[in-house]
């Protein structure tokens, strides 16, 4: 109860305001979120702010039932960092590899989905170089074969990698854009091809975005 309330205060009260006004995050096509009760948001990953920016786009009802997936080894298994990310980001911490007890990383996500929760996934795994996309991990494909009735929403995030890149502590406001694609249901049953499908949809969003907003690259040598 308290957690739900704090989350709402943090994200709808402060975070959204902070991200929009100070950082300069702009949401494009946000209305797709409203139509869905349960969903998996799949985005590219460049910054610690990614998950927060997506959380701040959710509405009052969706917020407490949506969990970003984070790596346990990075955010610390039981330490203070883990507690903070569980409480403040509403994160589900997973281990990247099988642990001794044999619990697979996917089990926790699968459990959350079967409880009717929504997930925020960054299949690139790590944030990588600023503003560059990497290969996707397979987890998203496996999840979607298990739950083909849950729609996934591709998201392309641009600019946050400049606001707070990997390895930097100083947050510098720059315009950033979060573009939502249309909600879709998987067509294929193959893990590989689902991963491909999601990946290409995010690439598609990126291409459309670049065409409209991004300055053309020039040589200033």
């Amino acid at each position, binding site marked *: 109860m308290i957690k739900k309330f704090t989350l709402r205060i943090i994200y709808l009260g402060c975070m959204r305001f902070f991200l929009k006004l100070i950082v300069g995050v702009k949401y494009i096509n946000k209305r797709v979120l409203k139509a869905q009760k349960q969903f998996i948001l799949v985005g590219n990953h460049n910054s610690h702010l990614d998950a927060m920016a997506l959380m701040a786009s959710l509405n009052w009802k969706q917020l407490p039932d949506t969990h970003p997936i984070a790596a346990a080894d990075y955010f610390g298994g039981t330490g203070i960092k883990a507690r903070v990310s569980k409480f403040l980001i509403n994160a589900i911490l997973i281990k990247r590899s099988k642990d001794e007890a044999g619990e697979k990383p996917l089990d926790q996500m699968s459990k959350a989905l079967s409880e009717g929760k929504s997930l925020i996934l960054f299949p690139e795994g790590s944030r990588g170089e600023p503003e560059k996309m990497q290969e996707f991990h397979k987890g998203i494909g496996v999840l979607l074969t298990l739950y083909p009735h849950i729609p996934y929403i591709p998201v392309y995030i641009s600019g946050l990698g400049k606001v707070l890149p990997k390895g*930097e502590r100083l947050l510098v406001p720059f*315009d950033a854009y979060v573009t939502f694609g249309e909600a879709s249901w998987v067509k294929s049953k193959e893990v590989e091809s689902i991963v491909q499908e999601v990946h290409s949809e995010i690439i598609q969003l990126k291409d459309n975005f670049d065409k409209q907003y991004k300055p053309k690259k020039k040589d*200033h040598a």
Partner: protein
Amino acid sequence: MNILDQIGFEQHKEVYSIIGVIIGILILATVIFYILGRLYPGEQTTELKRRTRSWWIMATIFITATVVHPIISFIAFGLLSFVALRELASISTNMRNEDRGVIIWCYLAIPVQYYLAYIGWFNLFIIFIPVLMFIWIPFILVVRGYTTRISSSMSILPTQLMFTVFSISHLAYLLSLPEIPNFNAGGRGLLLYVVFLTEMNDVFQFIWGKLFGRHKIIEKVSPNKTWEGFIGGLVSTIFMAYFLRFLTPFTAMESWFVGAIVGFAGFIGDIIVSAVKRDIGIKDTGSAIPGHGGILDRVDSLAITAPVFFYLVYNLHYA
């Protein structure tokens, strides 16, 4: 206490009557542009609609500040500078990754500049960015130690500060100008005057250009700008400057002169931003919703008219 007394209606009759006029014009413009948008849907009518939307925001802030407390204007202009600077910094392709930490200093200059405007410390206000930040930014760049293409960053960052912070803060400083005898409208009147003239100059240049535009003025930068639009806009602005001079301490002669200067300065600001955008290769400088222009497109001409107008009125009547 009477609400009219409380908001100082008697002392600022001019300002309140112009607020009434502005709301009237805004409603009229909204209706006309809405109908035009229905009749001729397209890029240019959308641009006009965007403009009216930003005028509504400006008018709301102005009226709130007039009725509640002037500090609201300073905060609003500070935010405007911040958003404009953020936009300019975000679209600049020739900024280096190492400049992140220095841009923070540029952002930090904004509250200082607006605080100086608020307390009315004129001597520091006019040198803080052009002299102190002009030295401080290159110094920080040097201290950070990346020398590759450092001269490019040394020129870009102070210029961005000048364009988005120094210039726009002059609009705020108008509100801190002292009272002078026989001139009741005060800083608020001057602020209204320059913003109104600048915006109308843009619109009139656009309309005259649409109606009679034949001869391109500077085709490589801004293909829509024509001599007919420029001169038509200039003349219209001079007339408006003359008829609205009750908002200012200007004599009739001075108002003709100021109108001409504001018209010309607005044109300069417009083509400067056009040229920058052309260099970077984008159409709008940033957007809230797809297809909607950014803040820089809204403040391009104001960024030049504001300081020019400020020093004109300052040297004519306050110095």
